[in-house]
Structures are given as structure tokens and as C-alpha cells.
């Protein structure tokens, strides 16, 4: 069953006529994902790749196609508005890939989403993939920018704040013969829509997921929260890796949220919280796949 999305999920892409959005919309189509609509204001009535209808508004796209998920590739100055539009159109899931959205915008968006049915994933995230059963995991649901072919359908749930580091983890798993139920990138921004803990709870409930790997990084306390919950409630074997143990304090390491400030959010504190929860922590990033193997006993 996987979490959040499966091979039947219908998705639309906001910002489909931009070069970034268009490129990844095409890759999702190639992967066999049910990409049913695009949205670009002022380009309604046109088609993407000669077959996917483009609409002026998300509401029109949802009404005409039944899409339940929006992938948002809109540039930062317009991204907050795009998310709110998706929320107002009532999609189940708004996956925001855009990097560089002002924090104030995300703060207002989150406050404005209270009480709405839409779940936000991201921003500044690689999106999510539920691998398919075809060759190189073809036929799955790919939302965002992750390379499809590194995946393999299986039983490991993957949740991460990073992009390429997630690919590294997924690739290690696939090479060990460990397929994935769903891989979710929650994004590297300080204010995001979905936390490690939210995804962890979903994996714990998902019958297809048998083990979980969580990849975090310095900054904030989301990993500690997830660990505290896992200690008490998680029934599945878990492995984790925290990036940034060598990062100097007070410097933002690329991701807007990856910063150790005031002695808080260090890798050491996170690793301790994870170990305390009985989670197998990878000693280095090359050990992520093996750590999960150890966790699964």
C-alpha cells in the first residue's frame, strides 16, 4: 500500500511550463506516474508534451482531472501563493520542491493552512517516490526531482531532510536488495509542512513498511522529537543517520535549516537521542544501508 501516494495517484504540476518543472514533469511521465494536469496562469488550454492539459488555476485542474496531489515548482517569490492556491483547491497533498522561499512566507502559509485538509511536504525538498514494480522501479509514483531508477519496490520506508543524501541512502538500500515502500524528502528549510515524526507515524501504520530509515541533519529538534516518539510507539526496526557532525557551529550548511545555534541542534545530541530510542545509527554516510540491515537483525 505504501504511504501518501501509490501508482494510481493522480498528480498535477504547478509551474509545468517552467524549465525546471517541465523537465521533471517529463521524467515523471517517463517513470509511468499518473501526471494528469499542469497549471500555469495564462497558459490554460495548452498541452504539455502534447497530451497533458494545462489549466490557468489549480481549482480548474482538480475539477477537470480529479488530481489529488500537486507538485509545486513555482519560483520562490510566487511559491507561497501557489501553495495556498493548492490548499484552497482542496488537494490532499501539496509537495513543494521550490528552494529559497522566504521564511516569513512559509510561516504565514502554515498558519493559513490550519484546519484545512491539505498536507504540505517541503518546501526545498526532493519530493516523494513510491517505487513501481517495473524495470528500474518503473510504473511507480514519482513526485518531484528524485531519480526514479535508483529505487526498487519493497518494504523499507525512507524519510529524509536532504536530496542527494537521500539518493545515496536509497541507492545503498537498492544495492543491498532492500526495496522501498515510499521515500519521502521533507526538505531542508526551518519551517516545513511535514516532519520526520509525521512520516514516521505513517510508516508505523503502513502494513507494507517493515523497517524505517530516517536521515536527518544538524539544526532544530525534529529528529529528537521523532526519536522520543519512536522509543515509545514505533514497532518496526529503525536505522538513522545524522549529517553535519563535522559542521562548525553558527554556520548555515547550505540548507536554510541546517545550523547549530546557541549549542542547539548538534549532531551529537541528535545521535544520542536516536541511540537512546534504540535506533541503529549509521556511523558514517557509507553505512546507512548496512545500519538498516543491522537494525533488521
Amino acid at each position, binding site marked *: 500500500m505504501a504511504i501518501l501516494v501509490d501508482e494510481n495517484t493522480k498528480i498535477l504540476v504547478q509551474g509545468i511550463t517552467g524549465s525546471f518543472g517541465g523537465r521533471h514533469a517529463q521524467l515523471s511521465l517517463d517513470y509511468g506516474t499518473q501526471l494528469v494536469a499542469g497549471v500555469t496562469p495564462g497558459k490554460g488550454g495548452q498541452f504539455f508534451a502534447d497530451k497533458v492539459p494545462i489549466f490557468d488555476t489549480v481549482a480548474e485542474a482538480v475539477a477537470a482531472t480529479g488530481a489529488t496531489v500537486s507538485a509545486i515548482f513555482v519560483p520562490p517569490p510566487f511559491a507561497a501563493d501557489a501553495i495556498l492556491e493548492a490548499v484552497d483547491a482542496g488537494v490532499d497533498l501539496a509537495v513543494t520542491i521550490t528552494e*529559497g522561499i522566504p521564511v516569513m512566507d512559509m510561516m504565514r502559509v502554515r498558519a493559513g493552512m490550519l484546519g484545512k485538509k491539505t498536507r504540505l511536504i517541503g518546501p526545498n525538498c526532493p519530493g516523494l517516490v513510491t517505487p513501481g514494480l517495473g524495470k528500474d522501479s518503473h510504473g511507480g509514483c514519482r513526485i518531484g526531482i528524485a531519480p526514479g531508477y535508483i529505487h526498487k519496490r519493497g518494504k523499507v520506508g525512507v524519510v529524509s531532510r536532504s536530496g542527494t543524501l537521500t539518493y545515496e541512502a536509497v541507492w545503498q538500500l537498492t544495492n543491498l536488495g532492500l526495496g522501498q515502500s515510499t521515500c519521502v524528502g521533507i526538505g531542508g528549510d526551518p519551517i516545513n509542512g511535514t516532519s520526520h515524526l509525521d512520516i514516521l507515524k505513517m510508516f508505523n501504520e503502513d502494513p507494507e513498511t517493515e523497517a524505517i530509515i530516517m536521515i536527518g541533519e544538524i539544526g532544530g529538534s525534529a529528529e529528537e522529537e521523532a526519536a522520543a516518539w519512536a522509543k515509545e510507539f514505533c514497532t518496526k526496526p529503525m536505522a538513522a543517520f545524522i549529517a553535519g557532525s563535522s559542521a562548525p557551529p553558527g554556520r548555515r550548511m547550505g540548507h536554510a535549516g541546517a545550523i547549530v545555534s546557541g549549542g542547539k541542534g548538534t549532531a551529537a545530541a541528535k545521535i544520542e537521542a536516536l541511540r537512546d530510542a534504540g535506533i541503529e545509527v549509521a556511523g558514517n554516510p557509507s553505512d546507512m544501508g548496512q545500519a538498516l540491515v543491522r537494525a533488521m537483525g
Partner: protein
Amino acid sequence: MNIHEYQAKELFEKFGVATPRGKVADNAAEARAAAVEIGSNIVVKAQVHAGGRGKGTFKNGFKGGVHLVQTPDEAAEIATQMIGQVLVTHQTGEEGKLVSKVMIADAVDIEKEYYLAILMDRESRSPVIVASTEGGVNIEEVAEHTPEKIFHQVIHPLLGLQPYEIRNICAKLGFSGDIAKQFGKLLQGLFKLFMDCDCSMVEVNPLVTTPDGRVLALDAKFDFDDNALYRHPDIAALHDPTEEDPREVEAAKYQLNYIGLDGNIACLVNGAGLAMATMDIIKHCGGEPANFLDVGGGATQEQVRNAFKIILGDPKVKAILVNIFGGIMDCDVIAKGIVAACQEVDLNIPLVVRLEGNNVAAGKETLANSTVDLISADTLADAAAKAVKAIAV
């Protein structure tokens, strides 16, 4: 992005945050003129981003980046000693910071010092006002030893600062009557500044009360959200690149995310998480990373070339580790970028390359067929071990 104290003062004035009179000067004559306007009880402050100025020492031997003087002549004399000189404080590192401006301000008498800050809190996803009766000192020490003396007020992201919240803070700080009224006006101005200018932090330390019954913001530290600077050209213009590592300034020109560190193994990686993890594994293998460098998810050949130049501009670098997980990015494009860069920069230190992902076979072939002398690695662990070994011999 940070700004100078005199720039902060200008922002305060614009938003109605009470602050002592002051002017910036970049030479002795200007300093004298500014001091004449103030009269007596004048403070001369070196303008650098680092803290600990008062206890700092200039490389010319002159002591202290903050001086109290009584006359315009003295102000001019102190300004002459500071301007054009390098100030070393506990925050600048031994290389220090060049002082090109001083601020001449009214040295107000202080009755009591307080702490006031507004920051963007990721846990509550809201602005939080932090206030304390313990001002003028390091707030992190207060937090550690007497956390009960720090008061937090979470502000609703959409409703903004409410009058009762100001009253709560006044009660905690012991402000009443006219002082409370003045403080309320100051805090409203500060909150508006925080929101309107997309700050991620504004810290007033100290906030002071004076014997003649005023509340003033005596010093300020700002941090702005870099992602929002596009809509604040006036604030972006306050950026002072001389305050930053020149390699970081250079890297920013090519949309490269670079942070200089102290080690000797340089790394070039795509993606911030993987870049951090690459530094971690270098350390895990017994080496020291020379930098954090994220060339981005879709790096071009040109970016890779410039990244190499920046890395090699650091004389401490003794080896380079390239770690690319080409998810969507074509490994062959990266390989061609590496070859072009090496030919151009005359590489004479070990280069370890680990390529994985999209079109990796072609990428490896490009590297193998080139004249570039490199060490190829298959996994992240293999690459780090080889890089550490390469400089051990």
C-alpha cells in the same frame, strides 16, 4: 546577512525604535563634525560585524574598539587610530577585521541594562520575543545559569503583536508608568521592523533605562533572511562583502554554496546534505575537511570549473575529494567539467573522484580517457579513505 551597527541605528530611526543619537564617519574630519553635534560624553565605536569590540586590540597596538571621549578633538584622534586599521577580537579570529568606519554616538548614562530580541522560532513557526532583566552580558550564559530570568512571548504569525503581550513583557521586566509606555512604542517599532524587513533575528543587547527616564536600544545585531533579500533591495544594499571570507563572496557569484573551514581536504559535492555527509566521512576517516561546497543539484560544467578554482585558491588544501551523486544530473557532464577544470588550473595535488548515478559509465570513461591524474573511488567510504591516504604519504 548581517549589517553594521550604524546601519542598524538607521533602521531603528526609520521604524521609531528609540536609540541614542549617532552618526557614522569614515575619516577624522567627519568624526569631529559628528562629535560637535553631540557635544560631550561621546562614544567612538569601530564598525565591524564581530562582537567583543571593546576588549579587542588593533594590529597597530591601539587598544579597544570602543572609546569614551569628551571633546570633538579626542573623537577625531581616536577615529584616526581606528580607521584603516585591523581590529582583532575574540570573534574575529587572529586575522582580525579591517575597520573602515567608526560610529560617533551619544554615550548615555545607564541606569539598568536589559536584553530584548525577536527571532523566528522554527518549533512554534512564529516570531518569538525574548526578554530578560539580565542585559549587557552573554544571553546564552544567562540561559544556562539562570533560565528563569529569560522570558519568551510567542507572537501569532497572522495577528501580530498584541497590547496584552506588551503588558506581559513589561510586567516581567518591571516596567511601569511612562517607562512602560516608551518601551511599548519601542517594541512595536522593533516588531514592525522585524516583520517588514524579513529578519530572522534582531537582538538588542543591551536595552537600557537611563537616569533621566528614557528607554533606549543601545546596540543591535541583525540577521536577515537571505531568501527574502530580493524584495528588500535597500537592505541588500547594506551588505558589506569585506566582512566575509573572500572565497565565500567569490563562490556566491557562481551560485556555489561554499563555507571555508580549517582542514586540508577540499570537497566538491552536489547537494547540501550529501556535502555535509562528505565532510563527516572525511573526519570519520581521520582527515579534516577544508570546506563545505555544494555545487547544487544541477551543476553546470562552468560551475564545476569555478568551484575548482576557489578550492585551489586555499593554500591549506592538500587534496580534493569530488563526490557526485548524479541523480538527474548527468555524471558525464560533471566528468567533463572536472577534466576541463584540471587542464585549466594546472592541478598538482591528489584528486579523488567518486561518481555515482545517472550515466556513470560514460562519466568514468571520460575521466579514464583524459590526461588528468586522478584517483577513482567507488563508494563514499572508499573515496574518503583514499583522500586521507593520499595526503598521509
